[in-house]
């Protein structure tokens, strides 16, 4: 029910919003959360629990429990698992409770609650596993499980990220956080202060603390982010700040964690009934949202906070039927105010159980004696319509755990407290066990000054800390009941006896207990349940909480949407400088790594295969050009350039003449081939070379690393993006190139290197090529390479794509690294043993290759052909070669050569089966075989006469 306007409220009564929940229409105000608006409308059941489908309503009202989770089904697509307690309601919203069977009011699955004694902790481990029946049971489990629904219509959303920097990041803008931020800012630090709530101030906003911290912080030079939570702490104060709209990755010189404490629910039978709530929820609902759900209240308390809440209740005209205090004797505060008002106070007592009425709401409690943590005799039965609870907190140490903080357990305050913090991380406030306003404020100031001293290396004197007098956390607010329903973890519907039974079964270690019971594994990740779980385990095993220890707190503090994590992402789509030219020529593109490359050029009325064949024949008979700009293009310059290359590549380069080029193969330490390319010498101390397209980035990175380790006098430049490259090939390539350059092509030997103007562009030219005809590889600056391309195209050169190149190179038996080699291929079984030069002091992989070469090879690379009259479908790459029923090898490359009129290929095969002419059996995927014969490579122009220009 909504009460009259209050000064403290944060709703805007001028703007009302209309929304639906479970199909029913409701009104709220701007500023309401979904939960506050529903409660204002008198809705009793806001959600259903995960396992027993028990009716639930607000508990922490702070995102520390998952009682109220809804799917937002209002938009174009629905959004799953919205946390209603902390999500603002919007006009037109349509909301649906998650995981109900027939709606939140009459959830049919609530029948499961009746069977709860047959479903003890870990029940699913103990049955359902008959082999034949498990699939059926599993289907049932998969129907029952999960919370919200994914909407497949959801579009891909990737929000952009901020990169933030600051001197001091303060997490939490309550009393201690505000004090810390002010102290740091007033001493000149660049401070960022964040809070997950829509407003700063924390409990100042709903308790009776008169102070000016909020105004001062707003006036100070502090960057304040509200509606923003620190999702995770990572090495070197790298903190993920998640806003509603995006993520900021904050690098902070110092971090002050002032994240406060989670109120912990006391445990008693039916402690989860609607309208049994934590004091913070009660206060925030009243003060911030002017929502009153209780008229006749019972307070269950064990600290000052509880009494403060009770006072507020009186202020708001709520009838307090009883105050039940777990404590007795000197532990009790002065209670005159309450006694004067004739409010019954039951000290040394507990709520033994709560009862619900027809509407599932709480209608009364049984108050029992409470001695040594055990319930005694019945003292009173009291009717009420709500229970407010304040028996203790658990500090929100999540970020500090992630930062590797050592904790100690403080017995006096019955909580964990940071003991040894990383040297630029500070904590303050409730985390340090301070709960009164004064101690929190001073503690915050100390943290702020500590941050200043750290950043400025100054020695500003720290204020004197005040001793904390409050004992806010009751060590055992847990009351057993033989009939159960004593909930510890609300997310997972875990009861006290589940813990007992788990320990009885041997899960008496905090981590094992968590994994067996699933305590703290639900969406609230133990915020309201870990501490009670730990206390239960400590008591059952006769240990102290410190000895029991905590489970590892991992990111995230609150879950983070994938749209914010994904960010804009970086999945590059690379194109060469000639990309538009290919488009104009009707290229069909394919993906090569991140690169778009022309697979072939489509021709009207011509099939793909015929188009490729025509491209192949154009290279053989006239002249073709292919864009090879995706190759890695590197340069090594310096006196030690040749030495460097000799260490990386298996061949020799010191003796390579300036103006000449040589094939290069690189291996790893184990002698496995990792890359190849052509290395040209531009000058004594200057080399230019290519790498494979796929290896470009890796090779550059690895060469840079090696260069740093070896400390040779040379540098590496990566030209992969700044140069384009084309390969001009065919018997008429010399003729056509001659038309556009003054270079003396008669004085340009095979494997020679020249620099010259081609079509007015200064180019680097290597007389080599992958495709086996007379050819030139022409490299030109990326911005100008199109001029060279255009010149050749306009003069009648035929563009050819990757497919034609594959055919042409295979005819020559040229290998493709990664296709004709694999993770175990050395130069000896990749057919490039001729390139290995052992007569130099060192190259990467040399030692391994020496050993490998002294042993028989298990596999070699060989060529094979299918009979010319073979008409069937060709086998495919990676079909196996079978010999006497066993795997003897596999096809690595295969194609039908239009020039040779035959299917040719390369294969890995056992050496004893690799003699020329030997018949091999290739097995298709369907198990049938085709025979082929081992053949000499190159299949085409074995003497290499065409390429040498002799033919």
């Amino acid at each position, binding site marked *: 029910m909504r009460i009259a306007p209050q000064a403290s409220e944060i709703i805007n009564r001028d703007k009302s919003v209309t929304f639906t929940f479970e199909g029913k229409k409701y009104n709220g105000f701007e500023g309401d959360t979904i939960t506050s608006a529903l409660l204002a409308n008198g809705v009793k059941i806001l959600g259903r629990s995960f396992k027993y489908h028990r009716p639930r309503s607000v508990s922490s009202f702070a995102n520390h429990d998952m009682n109220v989770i809804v799917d937002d089904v209002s938009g174009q697509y629905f959004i799953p*698992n919205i946390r209603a307690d902390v999500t603002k309601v919007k006009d037109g919203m349509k909301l649906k409770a998650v995981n109900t069977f027939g709606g939140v009011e009459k959830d049919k699955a609530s029948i499961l609650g009746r069977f709860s004694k*047959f479903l003890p902790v870990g029940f*699913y481990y*103990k*049955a359902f*596993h*008959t*082999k034949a029946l498990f699939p059926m*049971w*599993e289907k049932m489990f998969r129907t029952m*499980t*999960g*919370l*919200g*629904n*994914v909407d*497949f*219509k*959801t*579009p*891909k*959303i990737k929000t952009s990220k901020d990169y933030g920097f600051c001197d001091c990041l303060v997490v939490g803008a309550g009393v201690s956080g505000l004090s810390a931020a002010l102290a740091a800012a007033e001493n000149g630090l660049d401070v960022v202060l964040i809070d997950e709530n829509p407003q700063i101030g924390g409990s100042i906003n709903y308790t009776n603390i008169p102070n000016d911290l909020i105004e001062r912080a707003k006036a100070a030079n502090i960057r304040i982010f509200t509606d923003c939570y620190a999702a*995770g702490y990572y*090495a070197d104060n*790298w903190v993920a700040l998640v806003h509603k709209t995006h993520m900021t*990755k904050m690098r902070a010189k110092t971090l002050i964690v002032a994240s406060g404490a989670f109120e912990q629910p006391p445990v008693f039978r039916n402690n989860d009934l609607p309208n049994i709530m934590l004091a913070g929820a009660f206060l925030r609902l009243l003060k911030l949202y002017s929502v009153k759900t209780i008229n006749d209240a019972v307070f269950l308390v064990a600290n000052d906070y509880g009494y403060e809440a009770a006072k507020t209740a009186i202020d708001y005209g709520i009838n307090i039927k009883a105050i039940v205090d777990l404590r007795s004797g000197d532990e009790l505060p002065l209670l005159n105010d309450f006694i004067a008002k004739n409010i019954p106070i039951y000290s040394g007592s507990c709520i033994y159980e709560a009862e619900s009425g027809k509407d599932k709401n709480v209608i009364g409690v049984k108050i029992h004696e409470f001695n040594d943590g055990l319930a005694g005799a019945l003292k009173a039965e009291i009717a009420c319509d709500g229970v407010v609870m304040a028996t203790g907190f658990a500090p929100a140490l999540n970020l500090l755990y992630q930062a590797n903080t050592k904790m100690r357990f403080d017995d006096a305050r019955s909580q964990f407290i940071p003991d040894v913090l990383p040297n630029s991380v500070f904590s303050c406030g409730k985390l340090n066990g301070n709960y009164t306003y004064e101690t929190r404020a001073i503690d915050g100031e100390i943290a702020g000054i500590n941050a200043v001293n750290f950043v400025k290396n100054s020695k500003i004197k720290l204020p004197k800390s005040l001793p904390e007098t409050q004992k806010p956390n009751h060590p055992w607010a847990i009351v057993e009941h033989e009939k159960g329903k004593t909930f510890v973890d609300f997310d997972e519907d875990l009861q006290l006896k589940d813990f*007992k*039974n788990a320990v*009885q*079964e041997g*899960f*008496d270690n905090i*981590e*094992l207990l968590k994994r*067996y019971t*699933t305590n703290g594994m*639900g*969406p609230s990740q133990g915020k309201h349940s870990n501490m009670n779980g730990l206390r239960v385990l400590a008591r059952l095993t006769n240990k102290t909480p410190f000895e029991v220890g905590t489970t*590892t707190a*991992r*990111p995230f503090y609150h*879950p*983070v*949407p*994938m*749209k914010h*994590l*994904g*960010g*804009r*992402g970086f*999945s590059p789509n690379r194109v060469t400088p000639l990309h538009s030219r290919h488009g104009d020529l009707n290229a069909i593109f394919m993906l090569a790594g991140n690169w778009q490359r022309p697979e072939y050029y489509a021709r009207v009325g011509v099939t793909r295969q015929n188009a490729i064949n025509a491209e192949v024949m154009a290279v053989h008979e006239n002249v073709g050009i292919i864009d090879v700009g995706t190759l890695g293009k590197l340069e090594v310059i310096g006196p030690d350039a040749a030495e460097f290359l000799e260490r990386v590549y298996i061949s020799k380069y010191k003796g390579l003449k300036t103006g000449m080029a040589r094939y290069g193969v690189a291996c790893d330490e184990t002698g496995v081939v990792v890359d190849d390319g052509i290395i040209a010498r531009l000058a004594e101390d200057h080399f230019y070379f290519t790498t494979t397209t796929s290896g470009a980035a890796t090779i550059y990175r690895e060469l840079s690393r090696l260069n740093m380790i070896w400390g040779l006098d040379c540098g590496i430049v990566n030209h992969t993006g700044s140069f384009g490259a084309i390969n001009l090939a065919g018997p008429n390539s010399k003729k056509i190139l001659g038309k556009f350059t003054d270079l003396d092509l008669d004085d340009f030997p095979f494997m020679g290197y020249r620099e010259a103007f081609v079509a007015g562009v200064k180019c680097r030219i290597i007389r080599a090529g992958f495709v086996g005809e007379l050819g030139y590889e022409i490299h030109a600056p990326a911005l100008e390479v199109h001029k060279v391309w255009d010149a050749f195209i306009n003069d009648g050169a035929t563009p050819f794509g990757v497919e034609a190149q594959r055919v042409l190179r295979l005819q020559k038996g040229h290998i493709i690294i990664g*296709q004709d080699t*694999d*993770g*175990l291929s050395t130069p000896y079984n990749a057919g490039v043993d001729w390139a290995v030069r052992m007569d130099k002091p060192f190259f990467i992989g040399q030692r391994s290759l020496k050993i490998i070469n002294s042993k028989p090879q298990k596999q070699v690379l060989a060529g094979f052909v299918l009979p010319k009259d073979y008409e069937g479908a060709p086998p495919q790459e*990676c*079909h*196996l070669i079978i010999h006497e029923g066993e795997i003897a090898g596999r096809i690595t490359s295969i194609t039908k050569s239009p020039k040779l009129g035959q299917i040719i290929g390369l294969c890995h095969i056992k050496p004893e089966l690799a003699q020329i002419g030997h018949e091999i059996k290739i097995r298709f*995927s369907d198990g049938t075989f085709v025979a082929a014969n081992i053949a000499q490579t190159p299949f085409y122009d074995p003497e290499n006469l065409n390429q040498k220009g002799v033919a």
Partner: protein
Amino acid sequence: MPWRLLRFGLSKKHPEPRMFDAPDALKSSYDVVIIGGGGHGLACAYYLARDFGITNVCVLEKGYIGGGNTGRNTTIIRSNYLTPEGAQFYDKSLELWKDLSTEFDLNLFYSNRGHFTLAHTDAAMRTSRWRAEVNKHYGIDSEVVGPDFVKKHAPMINLQCGHHPIMGALYHAPGSVARHDAVAWGYGRGANMRGVEIHQRTEVLGIDTKGGKVCGVKTNKGYIETTKVLSATAGSTPRILKMLDIDTPIFIHPLQAMVSEPLKPWLDTILVSGSLHIYISQSSRGELVMGASLDPYEVHSTRSTLDFPEGLSAQMLDMFPFLSEVKVMRQWAGMADMTPDFAPIMGKTRIDGFYLDAGWGTYGFKATPISGKTMAYTIANDKPHELITAFSSERFKNYELTGEKGAASVGH
């Protein structure tokens, strides 16, 4: 409801004994000491007791059982490996997996979901075919399928996948998932029942040898005399080996993973994409279990990094754009003990009586039953089981690697 659950409702006391004892102290000697109370160590203890009657065995665990990579992996079980040695080994493992729930009388949620390795490039299609052909040769159910087949089994998938259209996939019908923690518990209970002692929070401080033979183990709880020691310690392997001055080419790389909040089940299969370096399945709790490839650097810790959920989410949204609004709940890391050829190191070592079960990198979980079984055989007979001879540490010296990289990298 199964009848078996009735006893819980009908008896006053919880009718279940401890799954495993908590012995007070170590004995002064054991026939076999197993270092590491993860799945592998416990499985070995189980099979030593069950198959060889060797029960004077203790398992030493410095933390809690199943707390290492057994409890940190993403629970995928498959046998579609690339090498004949790997494929046959993991296939035997899969056979054992199918009966474990019955054997343990403990529901491991061994759930057969089918496993797709999506191919976005020619190269990936080739590797898929290679794996399929090798698998089929050894009777393993694997085949190369087209995009239509993928779409049929995962209708919500975006075949376009950003810039990486799906060309096809390697489909491995037996691919499964299981409840990882329960595997350790099941083996632990089974071993314990047969007399094996499990000592948690017991750390090995040194291993003594005499004349090249193991003679004792120093722990924080006292000294043990023994002639046989197995190290099954995954990420801690280098630390144990250092005690004996044994060299292996094992490097420790972090492997991270994350889960979403629980969602109503929508994904029935296990999907892996090598090109996007991601994989995903949906657990019986409704959480999406997601992972990616190894961190590229060596780190001996289980700390998380932010770039991991960032990169993984970005790639995942290319495959499943509709996950934009789904929230990631938790991330974690394990320490993967990687070998150069992505195959494990199993068997005897140069120290008599010291056996090694390591190098499990990112594929140890699925091998739990078979590694336990073959290591038990190896220890009992002091002779490597025939299924693991290819995984001997000698292979590095002899350049006889078992090249599993192509099938092991992202698939886990």
